[in-house]
């Protein structure tokens, strides 16, 4: 059972990482907690749904996913980014209320995103029109039950995150983003066009969220609330990793995703640990999986508010 859970933990973590990295970027450069981040993921998912329906499978498949799905993935990323940029220009840019005021505004924006999606698509659930796959045969004897789709999700998340890393470390834009996150005034003084960097941050952060939403839809299902349901877990991941640190957000996302999926192990600890009687276990049921993540979040805030990475981008 443990390997099984670790596998699904990896997939769930990938999705959370895509969300938490974007949120951390926006937190560090935009300087406020964006409560609309979850619903940005929902936007990505539903745009991909529409695109995939229009484009179809386009022939071949890669890792069990039709080429058309990857086109839809790109569409989801782009739509989420565009919506975020529009929101930034129309709403956030002209506001002078400080980060708390922006936090509250982002809640309103989250409601607006969700309401529009529900008005258009209804409240019922749906899925992408992609065949669910059987587990990969040669891994089953080892107790690992993953499908090609799961592998695709993990690999795509790795690709996107690596791309972000390359961007941050080796490009001008990345350097400017790191400078802004460290000290925005100094960055502006040294000639960096901070508002342009901000726009790019929104593009990248929301784009990653959109990708996360698309994969969430593939892993589970599409409902208008899907992003909001995940939002608090993503916040927990960002705080665990350290607000403002993208690499921390990656670590935090990974940990929170794994802990969330590995909760069933708690009540079975006895049978897994060598010297402990088999019947023993920590009696926390899986209905508390989310609650555990929230408690971890609060503990981190109390004990080490800078999180794992603590501080810089």
């Amino acid at each position, binding site marked *: *059972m443990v390997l*099984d*859970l670790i596998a*699904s933990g990896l997939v*769930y973590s990938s999705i959370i990482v895509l969300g938490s990295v974007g949120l951390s970027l926006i937190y560090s450069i935009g300087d406020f907690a964006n409560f609309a981040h979850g619903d940005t993921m929902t936007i990505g998912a539903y745009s991909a749904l529409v695109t995939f329906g229009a484009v179809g499978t386009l022939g071949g498949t890669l890792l069990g996913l039709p080429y058309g799905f990857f086109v839809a993935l790109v569409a989801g990323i782009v739509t989420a980014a565009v919506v975020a940029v529009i929101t930034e220009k129309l709403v956030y840019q002209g506001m002078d209320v400080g980060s708390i005021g922006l936090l509250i505004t982002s809640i309103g924006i989250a409601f607006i995103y969700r309401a529009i999606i529900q008005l258009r698509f209804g*409240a*019922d*659930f*749906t*899925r992408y029109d992609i*065949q*669910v*796959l*059987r*587990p990969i045969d040669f891994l*089953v004897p080892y107790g690992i*039950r*993953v*499908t090609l*789709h*799961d592998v695709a999700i993990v690999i795509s998340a790795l690709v996107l995150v690596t791309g972000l890393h390359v961007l941050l470390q080796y490009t001008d834009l990345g350097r400017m983003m790191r400078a802004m996150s460290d000290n925005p005034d100094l960055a502006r003084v040294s000639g960096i066009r901070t508002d342009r960097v901000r726009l790019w941050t929104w593009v990248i952060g929301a784009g990653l969220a959109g990708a996360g939403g698309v994969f*969430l839809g593939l*892993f*589970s*299902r599409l*409902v208008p*609330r*899907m992003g909001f*349901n*995940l939002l608090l877990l993503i916040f927990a991941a960002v705080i665990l990793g350290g607000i403002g640190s993208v690499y921390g957000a990656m670590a935090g996302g990974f940990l929170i995703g794994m802990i*969330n*999926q590995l*909760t*069933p192990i708690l009540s*079975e600890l006895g049978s897994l640990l060598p010297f402990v009687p088999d019947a023993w276990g920590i009696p926390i*049921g*899986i*209905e508390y*999986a989310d609650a555990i993540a929230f408690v971890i979040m609060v503990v981190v805030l109390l004990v080490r508010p800078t999180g794992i990475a603590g501080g810089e981008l």
Partner: protein
Amino acid sequence: MKLTGSAGLVGLTGLAGCSTTSNTTTSTSTTTSGGSGTDTTTSTSSGDSGPYTIGMVDAITGSLSAFGERNQRGKDIALADVNAVGVNGRDLNITVEDSGSESSGGVSAAQKLVNQDGVPFLIGAVGSGVSLAIYQSVIQGTDVVQVSQNSTGLGLTDFPGLLRVSPTGRTQSGALANIIAEDGYDEVAMTYVNNNYGSSLADAFANAWDGSLAYNNPHDQDQQSYAGVISEMNSSGADAWLFITYQAEFASMVNEMYSSGYEPQLYGADSVSGDNVLENTPEGSMEGMKVVVPSAPVEQDNYKEFVSTFESEYNEAPTVWSAYTYDAVAIAGLSIQAADEFTGAALGDVVRDVTRPEGQKATSYKAAHDILADGGGPSDVDYQGVSGPIDFDENGDPVGFLQIQEVKNHEYERIGFIES
């Protein structure tokens, strides 16, 4: 200017609230005041030819909105049938209010219908907790008749004044226990959705089941990942897995089982089955699953007619939930026809009798209406609904019909019937 802008905004929201004073829907009929505990409105002007208005609390939005949609469709077909014949020569009108699938929403909806619109007959609600809340805080102590269209929770049996057309979930749970035992299993892993519906059916099953429960845990509605539940059920060692949950959650679970390669024998309560599940799960993922579904008597003529009307209208087969709502509306119409006056007390006197076994069997609204219009009393007619004979017992519960379905080639096939 900023100030005028905000004042205008305030004005806009005020306008939304202003509509509380707008005139309500149609007028009530002329009656003299009756009933010991109700507010009454007496119209001195004539309302003799206007339609009768009753109320309905439905889950139009919220977690149970799928049921709300089915209920609205059943209600629309029923209204068409009832008004084709008429009630006392007049039309029947239904004011629908949304409960939002929450008890607080249901109570405020019922407050509006009972106190503002003054309806003497209320069809509501979907969720068992919502129906109970409405009954205890709004209806109890008044004369208004309440008939729940979808609630299957066991708690409603304790309130004889709260009627329902959907049978109690106890029959379902008992039937499931029997089926699983007959299939030769003595160990079951069960998971149920964590709300009033799920927990009451799960409790009833645990009582009825003689074997052992290898796993008995709730899961939350509306979650993105049920991998943990499926994993735990697998490690419980049982080969028979029972699911008491809704379509969205169950579809996710089926996909999870399929992509993990688990193939246990599946059993389910009513809400796990439906076209939405079939569409969103792969072929062969539920092969051999047995589901117990409250059902209409499918061989009966009135049911077949209902199905064909529904299919021509909505391009899909109806569920029993639409049939229940159809019958609730028909019963309302018949009660109004049979009663002396359009008040809660008078309707309450006749509503049970029109469906009880004494009297001539009538399988359509028209037939029952004609018996009453010809001078018959409420005990001279026995309305047989499209969902079953109904026959309210002393607790306000109907007779239940259950269908046992099996999934063969990714379709539901009926393999048996149970009458309670």
